């Protein structure tokens, strides 16, 4: 009797302990959502606070952002465009490279794979200034293309796709060749559909990375109507600004696409993160 009672006590203690930790983790996000309904003057004065006047809550911040904050929506659009281009191009090229490294036997294959691993370890910061100079020379400053270019062939994605493609059934390739399919037909019509789970996982990781990316777009994008969301929001974080209405409601809306993406592909996302990480 005492053993089962003791076990029950431990169960509750452990659950409550982890539960408190989980609550502390979600709390900042919850308080962001709650704060988004508070008047911006209160936020200016008190910050995020325990003493909230619930009677003052309203949808004013959201009404403001939907009717007055044109800049915010152009940032939103830029972020969406840049993320979609990044996802499509990086998935297309990285899956192609990863597939070839896994499936074909060719000279230099191991060298290229080693190169992928090495690039993963080179910090972007050392490439940042020369790349910035290159973008100036190519006149790609302040363009979507310039913002996307360094992300198109992501070594992490190549590595991940290569790991996944190692498990593809190679007999299918021979069968398709006998049926007269070209190598490109094999990749696009047979193998790529089989890689769908890995594509979904990478779509989210690349989407998340691009949506939240800060340093590179900060260098490349200049004019106000070309900024992405994180940079646009950061420009509102000035000591003299009084933009808390846009800032708070805008931040809540920033998370929406990511949450949708996450809920939609959650299974693949976690699988993707773990297999991609642990085997690395």
């Amino acid at each position, binding site marked *: 009797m005492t053993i089962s009672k003791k076990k029950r006590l431990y169960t509750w203690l452990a659950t409550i302990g982890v539960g408190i930790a989980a609550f502390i983790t979600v709390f900042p996000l919850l308080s962001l959502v709650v704060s988004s309904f508070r008047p911006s003057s209160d936020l200016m004065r008190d910050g995020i606070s325990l003493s909230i006047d619930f009677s003052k809550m309203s949808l004013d911040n959201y009404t403001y952002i939907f009717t007055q904050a044109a800049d915010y929506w152009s940032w939103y659009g830029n972020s969406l465009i840049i993320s979609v281009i990044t996802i499509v191009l990086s998935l297309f090229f990285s899956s192609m490279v990863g597939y070839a490294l896994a499936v074909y036997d060719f000279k230099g294959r191991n060298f290229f794979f080693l190169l992928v691993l090495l690039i993963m370890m080179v910090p972007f910061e050392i*490439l940042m200034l020369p790349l910035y100079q290159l973008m100036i020379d190519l006149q790609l400053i302040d363009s979507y293309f310039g913002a996307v270019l360094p992300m198109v062939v992501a070594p992490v994605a190549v590595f991940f796709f290569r790991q996944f493609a190692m498990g593809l059934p190679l007999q299918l390739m021979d069968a398709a060749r006998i049926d007269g399919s070209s190598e490109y037909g094999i990749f696009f019509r047979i193998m790529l559909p089989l890689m769908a789970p890995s594509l979904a996982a990478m779509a989210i990781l690349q989407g998340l990375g691009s949506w939240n990316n800060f340093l590179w777009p900060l260098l490349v994008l200049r004019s106000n109507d070309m900024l992405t969301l994180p940079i646009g929001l950061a420009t509102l974080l000035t000591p003299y600004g009084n933009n808390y209405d846009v800032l708070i409601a805008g931040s809540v809306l920033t998370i929406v696409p990511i949450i949708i993406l996450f809920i939609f592909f959650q299974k693949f996302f976690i699988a993707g*993160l773990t297999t991609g990480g642990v085997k690395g």
Partner: protein
Amino acid sequence: MEPLTNSSQITEERSIVKKIEPRKNPNKFFKFINSKKVVPYLFVAPFIISFLVLTLYPMIQGIIMSFQSVLPGQVQFIGLSNYERIFNPTFFEALTNTIWYVAFTVLILTIIPMLLAIFLNSKLVKWKTLFRASFFLPALTSTIVGGMIFRLMFGEQNTALANQIISFFGLDPVNWRFTPWAAIFLMVILASWRWIGVNILYFLAALQNVPEELYEAGDIDGASAWQKLRYITIPQLKPIIIFVSTITIINGFRMFEESFVFWEAGSPGNIGLSVVGYIYQEGIRQNDIGFGSAIGVVLMLIIFLVSIIYLIATGTFKRGENQ
């Protein structure tokens, strides 16, 4: 009549075949680009091009520029003077801040996610999926959004959350963004908050690979829960502990956003300046790309050195120990 039409059809077909003949060249071309010797290289080509243009070229360029003074229209080799300039108080402030940040994030982001993952993996805890999702949620937000929330929670006003809590315990309110120790604390806590869920996932995946028999053997030997943790779980987790702490070290040295979101242009007395922040400040803001590149090269050397020393110290290069 019928055979006639037939034969006429045949001649027609033949004539079609003859008409196609000039296309033999493109056919050869297709055979060439479809041969198994060429296809892999075409598939890998985007990587090769991007490596040459977007990694190798800027890397060499970065090293060259670190010996130059780069001004629009006039580039000049100035030897080692960029590197000589690095030995200045601001750089050491940035480096000290970054090292503190690395030390704290490595400790927090290795130990706490590991313990939470062990709990989330045990049969003791209920509602695991809900908790897992809660820990992961911050990873979906950008540092900018997260940082803004933390700025408002750790506001300098007495009414802001953090000051409300500490004054409940009888402590004086803190001017968080303008106090040296608090500057490091803010950056560390923001990073820890954002990455805890991702690291929990890494540990959970590793825990699922720990063979069940080890625990059964432990049970037979009468091992306590603590002994099982100390002698089975943690040794089994060693490879992933090294993986997580290594990427935390590397990412720690590359920190920029956590500092930018709290102080934008610059913190008072550089209390929140990071090394990458210094590269940004000198290379982009002051337009001194040569000096910025030199800091970048030094940073890369530091990262390589620290990771290699760490990996040797943890025995990762010893063969067969971890696998």
